[in-house]
């Protein structure tokens, strides 16, 4: 297939080749997907039996694209007397405006054919190349082509129709077209999700204009409002402005409205495999986006709270109080061949849930939500002690109970080799990775704050604080690698330190669990040549047994990871180091046109001069999209304290002026300004070799006029 063109809306998306055609195989993620199911796997346009050639593709919006095509193959387009435009918008299926222009001085008679078919593959089947167990059917019903699939009570249908007269057969639509000289012919093609999990759908497409006179569609208006509500960024770096804009638009594209909360949005994890609710990804992205779009955090907290674990279920790795890992809607989930209804095999989402709840309150002052989620937060905190202490030593650890289809690694570095000793050996299970202890500590500290301020339960607050202090004391003793001066990546059940040096140390700074006396050594490691490539901090340090610059969690650089590392460095006062990391990743973003991938290669910056994209990473991916937002917060030193927003900027050398206007929060809207003291007139084009300026003077946010 030629280059993939993607348009999306929540968990409905279309991936096609660059002439707009879809020719999917079982293992190929092209087609129209909705709720983890492929609703169209073949969509081929021909004119007089000929395929069309792409001249150009215009990405109009994330949900809309336009293909300019000519008939014929190879180089004959120069003589083309016809041109064809396919303008496609996704939303409740997709809609395509097909236009044929006759540039000749003679009329033409054409046979236009659109072939359509569907395999109704579950995304899991596409990933794992599995076979279907049900039966397909097709029918022509009142001028509409119906493609269907049935397995017992499970039924999915796609409905295809056109506005112009055509002959519909079970393989597609045929138009007999006459076009006068210098004239055009056009039809609208509707591909609707006819039947999904909710039964027969209305078929009402989201892309339609709400009123005929209205110029913009519902989706255009929604994007416009989203962008209008976000703070305004002004700075002397055009690259940063582009990245910011890209991040906001991509985050809009990745918004996902859960069925139980219509009209409210939380971030889905990433295209194409992860357009669904993930506990960990939704929480991290909501944290990153809090100063920009607090509504994401609110919906995430409510939705994850509703699906919080309440029973023991080995198949789903569910326990009472546990926050879900992943929710899926496809056929394999429906028949309980996969555990994602939802699956709970994540060990960090639960403490992070409490972290997000507290951070959300600190920014928004929404004590009402914190009160309404008190039971969920208490259950999450109880889960840490009652169900996650699998090693029996007071540390949070993981080991799957579903050994067939459950996740082996339940922390964010979830690949098979991500947790290792310095010499490359893999530890056994249960595994207590270090960052989990940090999250648990932070959850207890923040839970105590909420207990005292909102739930009015000082005794509970005291208990949580005592537990947090005890955890911190033990952690700094048990995880510290004395001969390396950093924290081990994990602890074995027998207490052995899994002593690889990994980026998890940065998350520890973010959580606050690190003793002050150890923070400097940790920061020095994070900025050392073994860890910091010049673009960012590697997931695993160079020189460790399993280090590989293009190994998924063993050497690549993750923008999301770096955004939390930078936040952690700032927390312990390492402003210059935080700014260097921000600058490196934001420099990398330039090479990806503002859209940071999930991960890129850990090669030395001086070696490659450009960031090497990880081969199969998702893009856009929510927490990579959120990374620039968190970097803005970190560079400006934004911190809500009481009713105020503290601004304490420390900017990288290449940014002379940084202004973030209309930051939403409990204060209403405030502006933050940062200036560096460097002579920006002589700055290099890219901020490649950063020193960082001394931080500017601390100030409170200035009220917007």
């Amino acid at each position: 297939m030629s280059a993939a063109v993607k348009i999306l809306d929540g968990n409905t998306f279309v991936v096609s080749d660059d002439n707009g055609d879809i020719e999917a195989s079982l293992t190929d993620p092209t087609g129209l997907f909705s709720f983890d199911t492929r609703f169209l796997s073949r969509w081929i346009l021909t004119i007089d039996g000929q395929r069309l050639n792409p001249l150009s593709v215009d990405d109009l919006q994330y949900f809309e694209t336009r293909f300019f095509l000519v008939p014929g193959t190879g180089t004959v387009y120069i003589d083309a007397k016809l041109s064809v435009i396919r303008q496609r918008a996704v939303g409740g299926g997709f809609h395509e405006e097909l236009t044929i222009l006759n540039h000749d001085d003679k009329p033409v008679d054409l046979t236009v054919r659109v072939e359509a078919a569907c395999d109704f593959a579950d995304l899991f089947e596409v990933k794992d190349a599995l076979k279907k167990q049900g039966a397909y059917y097709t029918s022509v019903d009142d001028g509409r082509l119906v493609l269907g699939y049935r397995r017992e009570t499970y039924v999915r249908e796609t409905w295809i129709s056109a506005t112009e007269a055509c002959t519909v057969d079970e393989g597609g639509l045929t138009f007999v077209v006459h076009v006068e000289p210098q004239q055009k012919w056009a039809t609208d093609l509707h591909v609707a999700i006819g039947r999904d999990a909710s039964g027969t759908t209305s078929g009402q497409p989201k892309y339609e204009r709400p009123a005929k006179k209205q110029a913009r569609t519902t989706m255009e208006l929604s994007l416009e409002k989203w962008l209008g509500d976000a703070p305004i960024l002004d700075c002397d770096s055009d690259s940063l402005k582009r990245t910011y804009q890209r991040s906001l638009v991509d985050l809009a594209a990745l918004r996902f409205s859960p069925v139980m909360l219509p009209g409210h949005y939380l971030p889905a994890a990433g295209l194409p495999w992860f357009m669904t609710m993930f506990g960990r990804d939704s929480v991290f992205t909501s944290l990153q986006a809090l100063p920009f779009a607090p509504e994401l955090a609110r919906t995430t907290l409510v939705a994850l709270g509703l699906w919080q674990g309440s029973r023991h279920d080995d198949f789903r790795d569910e326990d009472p109080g546990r926050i879900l890992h992943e929710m899926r809607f496809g056929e394999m989930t429906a028949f309980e061949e996969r555990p994602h209804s939802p699956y709970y095999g994540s060990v960090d989402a639960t403490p992070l849930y409490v972290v997000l709840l507290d951070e959300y309150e600190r920014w928004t002052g929404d004590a009402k939500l914190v009160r309404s989620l008190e039971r969920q937060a208490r259950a999450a905190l109880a889960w840490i002690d009652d169900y996650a202490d699998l090693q029996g030593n007071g540390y949070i650890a993981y080991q799957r109970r579903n050994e067939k289809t459950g996740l082996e690694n339940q922390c964010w570095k979830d690949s098979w080799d991500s947790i290792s000793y310095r010499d490359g050996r893999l530890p056994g299970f249960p595994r207590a990775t270090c960052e989990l202890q940090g999250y648990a500590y932070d959850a207890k500290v923040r839970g105590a704050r909420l207990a005292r301020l909102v739930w009015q339960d000082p005794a509970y607050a005291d208990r949580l604080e005592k537990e947090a202090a005890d955890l911190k004391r033990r952690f700094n003793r048990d995880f510290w690698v004395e001969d390396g001066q950093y924290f081990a990546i994990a602890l074995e059940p027998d207490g052995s330190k899994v002593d690889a040096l990994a980026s998890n140390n940065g998350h520890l700074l973010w959580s606050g669990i690190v003793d002050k006396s150890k923070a400097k050594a940790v920061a020095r490691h994070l900025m050392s040549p073994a860890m910091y490539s010049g673009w960012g901090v590697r997931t695993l340090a160079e020189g460790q047994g399993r280090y590989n610059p293009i190994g998924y969690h063993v050497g690549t650089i993750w923008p999301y990871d770096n955004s939390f590392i930078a936040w952690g460095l700032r927390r312990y006062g390492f402003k210059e180091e935080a700014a260097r990391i921000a600058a490196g990743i934001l420099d990398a973003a330039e090479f990806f046109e503002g859209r940071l991938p999930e991960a890129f290669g850990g090669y030395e910056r001086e070696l490659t001069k450009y960031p090497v994209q990880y081969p199969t990473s998702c893009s856009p991916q929510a927490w990579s999209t959120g990374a620039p937002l968190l970097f803005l917060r970190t560079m400006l030193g934004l911190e809500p304290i009481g009713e105020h927003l503290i601004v304490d900027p420390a900017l990288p050398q290449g940014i002379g002026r940084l202004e973030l206007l209309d930051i939403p929060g409990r204060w209403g809207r405030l502006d933050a300004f940062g200036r560096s003291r460097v002579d920006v007139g002589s700055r290099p084009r890219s901020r490649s070799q950063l020193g960082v300026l001394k931080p500017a003077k601390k100030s409170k946010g200035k009220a917007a006029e």
Partner: protein
Amino acid sequence: MAELDVGLLEALEERSREHPVPAVDGVVLFDVRCADNVDKWYVTMEKGIVTVARKGGEPDCVLTGGCATFDAVLSGRANVMAALLRGAFSAQGRIILLSALQQLFPGSPDAADLPAASYAERQS
């Protein structure tokens, strides 16, 4: 199956008193299609507590399905979300109520009963 076992519904009430569901108020109608009749149960959720009755007002959400499906879900042998995706159940109205209510549905009878004493408890 002639009708739904009332004990399974009473168990919902009991569990909600022990572990209240997320505080979303409303009425879910269980529209149970049995062999010869339709069994209707009104499940009212108020401040996290559930009460079940034969009669009720206008429901906010209707859950429709066969008696065997209700029986399997309410006894922990099947998962409600999977049943919905499979088309064995259909739901109309405020789905948020069903999301909250499902927390009361029991887990698999085969699941290991895990909870060990917490670390803090073992220390004391």
